[in-house]
């Protein structure tokens, strides 16, 4: 069930109504006049919250979305299950435009959206009813609903029997979030979209949440993860989309995207810490990446940017440094390189 974004722009000041989504209220011409009104931001007359987004979410993808505060991440993901409709452009799921209200409600069971701080949306008198809210809305028979709730609670490792009658408001924050999460999983979506799912959790709960998400992906769910944490994105995702002021800034594999530490830094984002260290080492002339030619010059034709060729995590970086250390001629240290030249931005950078 690929989700295709075709030139999607969204404006909070002139949102398209579901029924007339086909005819945008802002004409493309007006939209492109520069200088008339601030193109992005939250001034009263700013135009775009997101602008000209173009990509496809394939089945089985694990897409990470990063971007500075207010860059439009939350706005973007709400397009994926038809909560909001593009002011310009369209979103296709399975080839059908979801601007239509019926199409949008049909896909809601398949695309599960977990909002930021989902525990703030709990409402029912007990955990069971809250988790069952989604499946019941889908019109499933009671025994099916029951199975969905049991499975969902098991998935988030909550005990069904002890919690089913508990009030969600008596639980701890982490448990509340699990319940809210189960409420979305209970609808058995095939695509799961998570808006900063681990914000404000303690390290242990955080890790178990991320592991759960990775596990769901392994089981075949398509996952979209909005996060400010580059380490998580690098570790989990197979593709990363970076937004800047509502526009697509970079899209590619974590390796491609995080190779450009400087550009990311310029828009207030970092790179995964191990990769950041690797990049600095390379800039200092440490020949990471090609141990065979350990002491050859770094700036080869194949690698004009001086960035590392692969994405390092802590283990692989440590391994490689160890190998490098062993391969080192006994006599001397690694020679520092002459001045580092900045490469041109290219590759995934728009």
């Amino acid at each position, binding site marked *: 069930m690929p989700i295709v974004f075709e030139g999607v722009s969204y404006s909070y000041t002139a949102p398209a109504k579901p029924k007339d989504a086909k005819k945008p209220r802002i004409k493309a011409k007006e939209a492109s006049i520069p200088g008339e009104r601030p193109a992005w931001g*939250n001034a009263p007359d700013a135009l775009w919250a997101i602008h000209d987004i173009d990509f496809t979410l394939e089945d089985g993808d694990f897409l990470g979305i990063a971007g500075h505060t207010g860059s439009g991440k939350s706005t973007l993901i709400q397009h994926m299950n038809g*909560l909001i409709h593009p002011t310009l452009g369209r979103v296709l799921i399975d080839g059908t435009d979801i601007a239509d209200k019926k199409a949008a409600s049909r896909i809601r069971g398949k695309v599960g959206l977990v909002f930021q701080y*989902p525990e*703030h*949306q*709990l*409402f029912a008198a007990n955990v069971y009813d809250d988790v069952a*809210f989604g499946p019941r809305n889908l019109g499933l028979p009671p025994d099916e609903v029951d199975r969905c709730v049991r499975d969902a609670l098991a998935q988030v490792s909550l005990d069904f029997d002890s919690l089913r009658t508990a009030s969600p408001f008596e639980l701890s924050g982490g448990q509340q979030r699990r319940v809210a999460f189960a409420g*979305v999983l209970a609808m058995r979506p095939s695509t799961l979209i998570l808006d900063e799912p681990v914000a404000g959790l303690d390290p242990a709960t955080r890790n178990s949440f991320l592991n759960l998400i990775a596990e769901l992906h392994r089981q075949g769910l398509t996952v979209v993860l909005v996060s400010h944490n580059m380490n998580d994105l690098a570790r989990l995702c197979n593709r990363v989309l970076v937004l800047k002021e509502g526009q697509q800034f970079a899209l590619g594999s974590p390796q491609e995207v995080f190779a450009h530490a400087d550009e990311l830094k310029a828009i207030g984002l970092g790179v995964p810490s191990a990769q950041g260290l690797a990049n600095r080492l390379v800039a200092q002339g440490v020949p990471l990446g090609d141990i065979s030619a350990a002491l050859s010059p770094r700036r080869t034709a194949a690698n004009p940017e001086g960035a590392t060729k692969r994405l390092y995590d802590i283990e692989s970086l440590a391994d490689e440094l160890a190998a490098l250390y062993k391969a080192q001629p006994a006599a001397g240290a690694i020679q520092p390189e002459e001045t580092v030249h900045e490469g041109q931005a290219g590759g995934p950078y728009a």
Partner: protein
Amino acid sequence: MPEIAIIGRYWPGTSPLHRMDPRAKLLMSLAVMAVILCAQGFVGLGVCAFFTFGLFVLARIPLKAAFKSIAPLAFIIVIAALLNIFFEQGGQTLVQWGFLQISSKGLYQAAFSGLRLLLLLLSMSLLTLTTATLDITDAFEHLLAPFARIGLPAHELSMIMGIALKFLPQFVFEVQTIYRAQISRGATFAKSPLKGGFQMLGSLMVPLFTSAFRHAETLSAAMDARCYHGGPGRTRLHDLRFGSRDRNAVFVLSGVLAAVIAANLLV
């Protein structure tokens, strides 16, 4: 933040109108409304309209934004006009349709009261468009201060009003998010209010109330932490001061009042 302020969300600016003393502005806007109510004919209203639009130009607020700010209240104008059309009788009968009839006087009255309401709303929205909520509540507190002597809790009242106004957009924003979250879980708010309707409503209202309590707790903790105790002896960062701008405003408004009265008498 969504655009919800019932009448005119603050439009940041540095015009003379923005910089007027909020107390003066609050009183003036009451006075402007009084002047508009004084007008008894289209000429008088014309003077008021000219004046009101002049103020918008002075405040550098686009007319489109002005009309947008009163759009949620437009139904009042429509209802008032319709009532006048059908219930105000006299003069020539233009249309007769069963027991309904439209007379020329009704039409005249409808246009007149519609226009007057429009001007009233516009001038009211001008206050909130050019004044930050905090300033409005400050002004409110100052103007109520004389009544504190007879036991009116002026400071508390304005603090409550200020907090309520401040949080209104926040709550609208949160309702929106909660609404979308429940829609994502297949909720349908449009149909069958009886069958499961209460649960749907609950799925909106319960999270809203819990968030209200959460905000109240954090806010009171934050105010405590800043040693807030309200009441007397509290100084402020920006003291309100009347200036020449405010005096000029009184002159201009008196001029307009004179013009309206003249229009009433002469036409």
